[in-house]
């Protein structure tokens, strides 16, 4: 049983800059207003573990399951009888770079967790993806990263 929601933004940001946002712990906190802290190993590889802490919730362990530089990244959080994964992908098109973040639940309790946690995460996806690409652009321009106040809070 699979439950999935995703959001895509088209951008002029570069693959490299987006990839750096995806693989740098400090960028995760800047790009996701729901995150209070993130810790990632410096030499990320498939199977690497890190931790994330959302505001008001305990720290959780994440495991990287896919890392294709400049293309795709995915990490998972194990839940009782379900697996919560966050597939990230980017595709170059003639109109710009398509950056997609998804939230996916698999397993027996996927529908239940979809209602309990998935919908909330999905509502925040547009804001997160917009912040990722906006801050990737800012990185190129050398300006300070955008914050949730500057970005859109409607999706959170």
């Amino acid at each position, binding site marked *: 049983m699979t439950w999935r929601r995703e959001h895509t*933004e*088209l951008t*002029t940001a570069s693959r490299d800059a987006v990839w750096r946002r995806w693989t740098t712990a400090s960028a995760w906190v800047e790009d996701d207003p729901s995150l209070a802290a993130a810790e990632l190993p410096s030499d990320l590889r498939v199977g690497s573990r890190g931790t994330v802490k959302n505001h008001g919730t305990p720290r959780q362990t994440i495991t990287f399951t896919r890392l294709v530089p400049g293309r795709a990244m995915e990490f998972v959080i194990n839940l009782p009888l379900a697996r919560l994964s966050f597939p990230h992908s980017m595709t170059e098109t003639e*109109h710009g770079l398509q950056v997609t973040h998804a939230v996916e639940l698999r397993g027996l309790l996927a529908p239940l967790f979809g209602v309990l946690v998935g919908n909330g995460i999905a509502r925040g996806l547009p804001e997160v993806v*917009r912040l990722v690409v906006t801050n990737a*652009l800012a990185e190129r*321009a050398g300006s300070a990263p955008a914050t949730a106040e500057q970005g859109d809070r*409607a999706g959170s």
Partner: protein
Amino acid sequence: MSTPPLVDVVVVGAGLSGLTAARRATQLGLTTRVYEAADRVGGRVWSTTVAGVHVDLGGTFVGPGQDRIVALAAEVGVSLYDTYDTGANVVRWRSQVKRYRGTVPPLGAALLDVARIQATIERAARQVPCGRPQDAPGAAALDAQTLGGWLRQQHASRTARDLFDLVSRTTWGCDADHVSLLHVLHYIHLCGGLSSMLDTAGGAQESHFVQGSHEVAVRVAEQLGDAVRTDEPVTRIDWDDDGALVHTDRGSCRARRVVLAVAPTMRRKIRFNPELPAAHEQMAQRWPGGVLSKAYAVYETPFWREQGLSGQGLSDRGPVFITFDASPHQSREGVLLGFVGGPQGRAWDELPEAERRVRALASFADLYGPKALEPIGYIDQKWGADPWTGGGPCAAPSAGAVVPYYSHLATPVGPLHWAGTETADRWSGFMDGAVRAGERAAVEVLRSISTQADSTQADPTTEGAPA
């Protein structure tokens, strides 16, 4: 040093309101001079050409009841055509794209709640006297809350609140949480109701100008000739009861009366000597302009029409949240106009031009398919970043800013009179309101000058010389 020239009326601001005031004052036999800070006339109406196609960058639409702007346009030879309104509208809401007819999109069970809120707002708006919102029953309580706060108090559904956020962004350039409920109700009443304000057929979006709305301002300015000075901001106004001395960086001009036809917040850019009453300064601070931007994509053809779509769309995804078919009259090209506003609009305004373009086109593609990603031309206009208009489309007073300050919007101070769409007694916030306010200010000035002349003749000790 030569004596500054003397005119009956100096008008500050060559937007539609200021130009109308000057034109009408001239018709009434008064001598005028118009100072405009920007290097063009028009204020919040402006246009350009993209891929050979004319687009209105500012005020665009007119509708039934907006007879003053329509009359002015007709007088200067600018004609109207109907906004394209054939076929289905499209909405992207909660990740689903649907077609619909009419103004209100198909939002499932929430539609009943939207209807309930709309009816309640319409009823409440009718209780607010036009031109005197501070005299509405319970005015202070209405003014003490925002539209957003009131919606929550009414237990409006999330969908209804989100929908009214879109209305608020388009109308006042801010979210429902940032605009006074009393202002909203008064504004709606001045438009004759929500339907009149929001509808295309039969409403304020019914028509466009063939030559563009900016052309109205250009032609009025041409009629006024040398009286209009662009690129000449007024820096200081010395005034007393008899008149004023208006200063710019290039010189000064004496005037029996001054009409300030600028957005409320822009009044702060001028130094007054003596200072205006404190409430005027406070009002200018607490009536900021909204933040609304417009994106235009020009296509080889209006391809959405072939799909049976009207070009009118609504999206909760952004950055473009409302679209219209703004294709030129009798032309093969198609033009999609998108409004960008609210918190997402502010972030979008900060982006480089190429990124703004990509994101706006992606919004169009969300509603109309991948062909929308391939325009032959694109332009956007960020009114929130315009240095001389004070934002757009109009002022958005926050909670508590209407009851204490509304009466200061248009009440003359000595020889200083006020115009601008915000001061209008109907269609405030629209081009029609700008024209009405300009006409009212001109008549007001004539009466004031006539009254002064009468009293001067009656009192031989008065010199009657302006400042």
